[in-house]
Each structure stands twice: as C-alpha cells, then as structure tokens.
C-alpha cells in the first residue's frame, strides 16, 4: 500500500503530514525546528528517508538539517555557503552596484540518483552543490560569472535562486530561475550557463524583451518530457517546447495571469495547475475566491477548480514553492497558503480538502510518494 508524506515549510517550523494511499486521513507531526523559519524541505528521490531542510533566520543565519529516517530525527549539517573567488556585484534595489552577500537558502533540490548530492538555490542568487550529504557546499560559479550577473537586480523578495529542475534524461542539463534575473540553463553539469528568456516580455524593465531582468516566479516540467517547460512569471503564464530556447504565452482565459506557483500533473504532461493572484500590488486571489486553475491542453484553456476551496472572503497568497503533486493514480495535488491552510486533492484537482487549517504562514510544500 502506498503512503504519502507531505513536507511543509512554514514561518515557524516544519510539519510532516502522512496518509495512506487513500489520502483521506492525515496525521500531522511537528513543529520541527519550532519558531524557526523553514524555507524548504525536500526528500531524495533516490532514498525517500533522506530529507534535507533549509532553516533561515535573520537572527542566527542559515542552518541546514538532514534526516535519514523520513523526518523522525534530524542532524544539523554544514551551513558554510561561500562564493567562489571575488564575488563581485549585482544591482541593488536602487540600481547601484551591490556586493554579492549570502543571505539564505530558498530551495534544496536533491539529486535524482545520489542521496548525498543535493543542490541549493540561494539569495544572493547562486547555485551550490553538496556531494557529502550536506556537510560541505561548493558554489557552481559559472552561473554567477557567465556575464549578465552584474545586471541582475533583486525582486521584492530578494535576489533569490528559487527553482532548480534536474533533467531526468540528461544529468548534465539543469534549469534554474532567479527573481528578478530570469531563467538559465546549463548543458555541461553546471560549468557554463546561459540565459533562456527569449519570448518573455516584462513591462517593468526598460527593454521589455531583454536577455535578463525578468521576474520568473516558478518553472515546472513533467519528467517524461523535460524539453517542455511551464513558467509562472510575475505576470504571464508561459510555455517552452524547446528547453527554454523560446517561450510563448499560454495565459489564455485565466482571470489573472499573475501568480507564483505552477505544477504539472504526474501522469498527464499537458495538464498544468496554477493559482491566479489578483495583481502584483494585491497578493490575494481575485474576488476573494481561492481557485486553482487547471489546463488539460498545456495552457491557453483553463478551468476553475473550486470544490472544497473557500469561495468568499479569502485573501491568502500561495507562495512559489508551495504546490506539489504526488504520483498516485489519480494524481494528488497539494498547496499551502500564507494563511496556514494546507489543501489536498486526491482526484487531480476536481475536489479539495483542508488537511491542516491553522499552520503558520506556509512557505513551501513538497510531497513524497512512498511505496
């Protein structure tokens, strides 16, 4: 019998929710690291008992934890994130050069094949890798140094590298995204990188279709078709069919194409989920209705999914790392809100239940399907 484990990072600790494959009874464990901001937790695809957690604090800096027993016990591992060489500068909020300074780890992406290898996306934007289970971290400096780095400027949340997608068919290919620099790709295991932002248009930068400067919020892919990417940009839902070489808009009939999360159904590569947010100045759903939108056509045609979700007076947000899918059939979809609600659908989004109602502000949601 399959089991599901949901890993929720929140403003005041981590929570782990477990269920059997029916997904109608949930046990909530936590808070782990109570009182600490847990930006992200993610399990290793190669060993589901290995889970990495990023704990960040304005008081005490960055801490990384690792569990080898599915989250029951935790060990504190390495937290030294030092940029390689002369770190140089990026643009500050005011457009003047600002020295690169490490602040926190936004996203941890374990290797698809080795439990001891894990990537970390950090603020100020850079990609780090550990090959010893998180004990030590080395930057992959080719990203920061590929040429456009001095032009990168932070989004309101900071200059964060928040998305890391590992190509299941090509271990040398990695996609990453940075707010507000854009999307980048390596085809040689992280040595060299280039921007992949052709087709993105952003009205808030002087050159609307510039090579960098786009506030990409999230990118998702289906593992069976890694050349097809779906992007929730600051505004606009985008799609690429050529591994990011070019992008086209697929916002279609969405009530707003602003948002943060985007994800793909586990078994249907053309089924995509987003949560529209009213605008970049009003970070809550349109009309006070929390609606997930699903496209079964790879974009452009979207249907509202509302059963079980609040349809009045709802003014929460869903942050960029706070949606995930399981791999059961039917596919389960999960997302967390800034109001602390964790919603789950066991029928690919047709209906939703609240599996935790009063957690702290939810920063990230990941799901493990255990067999």
């Amino acid at each position: 019998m399959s089991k599901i484990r949901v890993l929720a990072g929140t403003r005041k600790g981590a929570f782990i929710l477990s269920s059997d494959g029916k997904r109608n009874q949930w046990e909530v464990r936590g808070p782990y690291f109570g009182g600490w901001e847990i930006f992200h937790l993610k399990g290793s695809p190669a060993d589901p008992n290995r889970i990495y957690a990023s704990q960040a604090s304005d008081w005490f800096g960055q801490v990384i934890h690792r569990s080898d027993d599915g989250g029951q016990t935790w060990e504190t591992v390495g937290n030294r994130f030092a940029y390689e060489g002369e770190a140089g500068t990026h643009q500050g909020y005011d457009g003047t050069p600002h020295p690169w300074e490490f602040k926190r780890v936004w996203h941890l992406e374990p290797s698809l094949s080795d439990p001891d290898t894990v990537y970390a996306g950090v603020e100020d934007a850079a990609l780090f890798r550990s090959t010893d289970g998180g004990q030590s971290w080395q930057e992959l400096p080719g990203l920061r140094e590929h040429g456009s780095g001095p032009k990168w400027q932070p989004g309101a949340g900071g200059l964060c590298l928040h998305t890391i997608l590992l190509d299941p068919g090509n271990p040398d290919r990695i996609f990453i995204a940075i707010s507000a620099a854009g999307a980048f790709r390596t085809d040689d295991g992280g040595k060299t990188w280039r921007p992949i932002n052709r087709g993105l248009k952003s009205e808030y930068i002087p050159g609307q279709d510039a090579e960098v400067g786009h506030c990409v919020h999230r990118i998702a892919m289906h593992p069976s078709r890694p050349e097809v990417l779906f992007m929730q940009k600051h505004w606009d839902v985008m799609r690429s069919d050529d591994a990011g070489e070019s992008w086209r808009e697929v916002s279609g009939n969405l009530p707003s194409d602003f948002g943060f999360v985007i994800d793909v159904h586990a078994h249907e590569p053309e089924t995509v989920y987003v949560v529209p947010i009213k605008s970049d100045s009003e970070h809550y759903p349109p009309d006070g209705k929390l609606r997930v939108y699903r496209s079964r056509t790879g974009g452009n045609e979207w249907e509202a999914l509302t059963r079980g979700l609040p349809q009045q007076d709802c003014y929460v947000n869903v942050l960029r790392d706070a949606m995930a899918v399981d791999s059961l059939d039917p596919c389960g979809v999960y997302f967390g809100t800034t109001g602390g609600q964790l919603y789950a659908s066991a029928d690919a989004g047709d209906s939703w239940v609240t599996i935790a109602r009063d957690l702290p502000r939810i920063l990230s949601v990941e799901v493990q399907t255990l067999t």
Partner: protein
Amino acid sequence: MIRVILPFHLRTLARTGAEVELEIAGPVTQRSVLDALEARYPTLRGTIRDHVSRQRRPYLRFFACEEDLSHQPPDALLPAEVASGKEPFLVIGAIAGG
C-alpha cells in the same frame, strides 16, 4: 571556567542548557570565547558570527557585567569577572519580529 548564556534557539540547536561552561587557555576575549564555543558545539558555527566575514550577526548582542560589549574589538579582553567565571558572557537575540 568561562560561563556563556545562550538564547533559546541556540540552546536548541546546540542541544544544551541555557548556560554552558568553557575552558579557555590564554586571553579571554570575544574571539577566544566564540572560538571555544564553536569548537565545543560545531552546530553553532555561522549562527553567531558570519562564516565568511566573522562579523557578529546584526540581531545579536554580547553583554556581560551589565555592559553591552557588542562593539568592542573581538580581541579586547573581556571583564575580569567573566574571565574568572564569576559573571557570565551573554549572547542576546534582538527582541523583534513576529
């Protein structure tokens, strides 16, 4: 024996009580106390001082003998009462946030 009092979250991280005792050979300074603390509790590395710059984190302060010693040079001698173990060296977190 030097006594150091840690804030709640660092006690949890170090898996210790509020007060820890350290042996320090040589001059008792902020640097030697923090070096000894981090050597005894490696999980505290990077949480009080930045790993790279070695600067005190902005939301932390160092107090002893009813004085704020946060802006003292890291190699300045701490008060004799701290060096003798009569008074503790306190690491204090800012009271702020939500």
